[in-house]
């Protein structure tokens, strides 16, 4: 059945079964390919999007449960000043290796910085440990979060 979704500030209609996860609604029905499939069970974080500013694993949210929630994906996060800073830090430090997990990492990092402007290492551990980076670029992810939040980046 058709669901009206608000994605990156646009009203979009997706005709999917109620149990279809938001991830697959975005990818296969709406052609929004930034959120990635990694595990399908909420373990890896590659599919992370924001709903009303909160990071969620879009593989775990059925399309029918989103309602009027405002969805932001990696494609739209640059419109947010914090999101833009995070993307800039990621670019400057050349965080990515394969880059597949990075949309999810950036969405988790942006949510962290929106809730806490100067996160500590422990804050970063807590907010980012739901996102797997198989290439293990964790050193640079941490540094980029520090850079985006205007904190000193250790070499």
């Amino acid at each position, binding site marked *: 059945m058709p669901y009206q979704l608000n994605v990156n500030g646009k009203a979009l209609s997706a005709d999917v079964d109620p149990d279809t996860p938001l991830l697959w609604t975005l990818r296969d029905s709406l052609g929004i390919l930034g959120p990635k499939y990694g595990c399908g069970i909420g373990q890896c974080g590659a599919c992370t999007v924001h709903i009303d500013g909160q990071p969620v694993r879009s593989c775990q949210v059925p399309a029918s449960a989103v309602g009027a929630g405002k969805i932001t994906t990696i494609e739209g996060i640059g419109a947010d000043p914090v999101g833009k800073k995070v*993307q800039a830090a990621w670019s400057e430090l050349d965080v*990515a290796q394969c*880059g597949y997990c990075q949309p999810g990492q950036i969405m988790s990092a942006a949510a962290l910085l929106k809730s806490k402007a100067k996160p500590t290492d422990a804050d970063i551990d807590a907010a980012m440990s739901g996102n797997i980076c198989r290439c293990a670029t964790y050193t640079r992810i941490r540094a980029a979060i520090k850079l985006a939040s205007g904190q000193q980046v250790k070499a």
Partner: protein
Amino acid sequence: MTLQLTGASRRDILKASVVGGGLILAFRIAPKAEAAETAGAQALNAYVRVSPNGIVTIMGKNPEIGQGIKTSLPMMIAEELDVAWENVRIEQADNDPKLYGRQFAGGSMATPLHWDELRRVGAVARAMLVQAAAVAWNCNAADCKTSGGQVIHVATGRKQSYGVLAGQCAGIPVPDPKSLPLKDPKDYKIIGKFTPQYDTAKIVSGQPLFGIDVQRPGMLYATYQKAPVFGAKVAKADLDAAKGVKGVRKAFVVDADSANVMPGGGNIGSGLVPGVAVVADTWWAARKGRDKLNVQWAEHPTAKQSSAGFAVKAKELAAGPPQRTARNDGDVAGALKGAAKTVEAAYFYPFLAHSPLEPQNCTAEFKDGKLEIWAPTQNPEPGRQLCAKTLGIKPEDITVHMTRCGGGFGRRLGNDYMVEAAWIARETGAPVKLLWTREDDLQHGFYRPAGFHFFKGGVDAAGKLVAWQDHFVSFGEGQSYASSAGMAATEFPSRFVPNYRQDVSVMSLGMPTGPMRAPGSNALAFVHQSFIDEMAHAAGADPLAFQIKLLGDKPVVGEPPSAYNAGRMVGVLKAVGEMSGWGKTKLPKGEGMGVACYFSHMGYFAEVAHVAVAASGDVKVKKVWVAADVGRQIVNPSGAINQVQGSVIEGLSHALHQQITLANGQVEQSNFHEYPLLRMSEAPPVQVQFLKTDYPPTGLGEPALPPAIPALCNAIFAASGKRIRSLPIDTSQLKT
């Protein structure tokens, strides 16, 4: 393999032709041995395209799997071409062996294979542009220099851009690349500079780059269910139930040959495996259809195999005479008898799955007898050949486009998902994107083989390692090892210990195995460097000093291709000792440092780990230091450091968490909750130093990984007095 530009092949295809306003300089680089008789048969090419506006497009020839090759190989060309990096555009080449030679991501080979050739490709293009200017200005090429994409007449300061000159290159003869001088490294403007990956902007904004992002008009989505027991055939499947799911278009059995699993025999040629395909309007619908299949699988002999069974069998084999002896230097039995101290230890490492974060996928379109493929693959040409063989069509009727890969680690050297997509697309008659589930990926891999080592070692009264014996129990058939399950007779410390014996026994394995990042080395470093650490402690010696002493005074031991440069290894060991404050840092109780070194993929690496072991047994890795020697030049320091840090943390992840087990012929783990990977909260800082030595530059995709594991385990021993002889580390054994 030595590669060179050859005169004969240049005559064949070296063309400077003006195409679409841009100049394409095509070079054929043929293997030396074949050049004379079959000019250009095995081609390796590079392309430079100069637009009238001065923008230079460089083809990235190899698959990009996160190692940064799409950026670093064009950096080599751009440096000698002498263009500003911001004016360089990079395009991913399709699979085209006639134009590009071998295109693969494996063995950390791209840098050593291309370092000389691709710089010369840039130099040739530059020389032609200079010659075009010399013709236009009626002067000698020697009167001109270049800078930032312009040719400059030195005496007059007259300038012209490459963009204009490219249009005047049609009649310019192509110089012999070997005749051209290359830049002095002190003049490098691109090579050696921190250069973010070319696709960074697209990555951070979520643009479609990966195989999973490919879309075609009218495309359908597929899932493919294979037997939990490797190679078992479909006995029964409820295809109608699957077809009853809304959105499902097709469901069919693929009656492939069970032997295509190639039990234990390697992944490169593995073909189509039996299973059931479900094709639908969306992938979610295909999955729901698959859930209704209720597949019954035929019996298969691999169902009798299990990890527990292998462990029992390995012990039995180790207790008896070995199936063969791979090396026997001196008199090990005598040396053990005469040793001041001996140690016996049994080591084990498990099967591992590659688990790249992008699950296997491929998009295929079969139309009018021709097949077009978009694939995240590390090895496109064997994939094309495999599809041709399996579908019974000509390789030249198949086009393979390479997408960015969401990780590779060796898994995408095999193209099983490519041939599945091709088969399903032909059966479907529409473009199809096949996507595996994470469960498919973990349960249908080409696994890093498990292995067992039964060691005996002896040190003399002076603390010298005088005896080393290993009964290696691995997988294979007869004299041959399963893919990546082997060990060279030159494995360190053979050749460095006077009495050395390497015995081998193998067990049959029905599970496919294959190369995983630093294949062989990722396991062998753990056992060898841990047991050397045991011997150091037996000798009452400092482990780092013991390693240096073991390496001896002879700079190079053995002959290529198995020469071991002990001098380079001593260099990195000393460096890592200084970096880490080895022996000078007073650590609190429960903390320790461990050292390990390893040579693989032409790189010399020494690493120190600093860990804290809590009373609960929990292990916290506080820091890792890496000293590396990969020759005289780091091409892209950004990618280089990232590769090393990632490799080290991946090694820690293997050691602390990862294990694939087999029960009743099936992999027991299904997803990341059962096959955990190391996460942010466990990732230590990793400090990296590259020693510049006077050797040609070599690759960094792999060699930093192997020593990380024994450095960690040796640090745990230093911290807790408990020796890790089995992976993954069982922290409950460390409880105090």
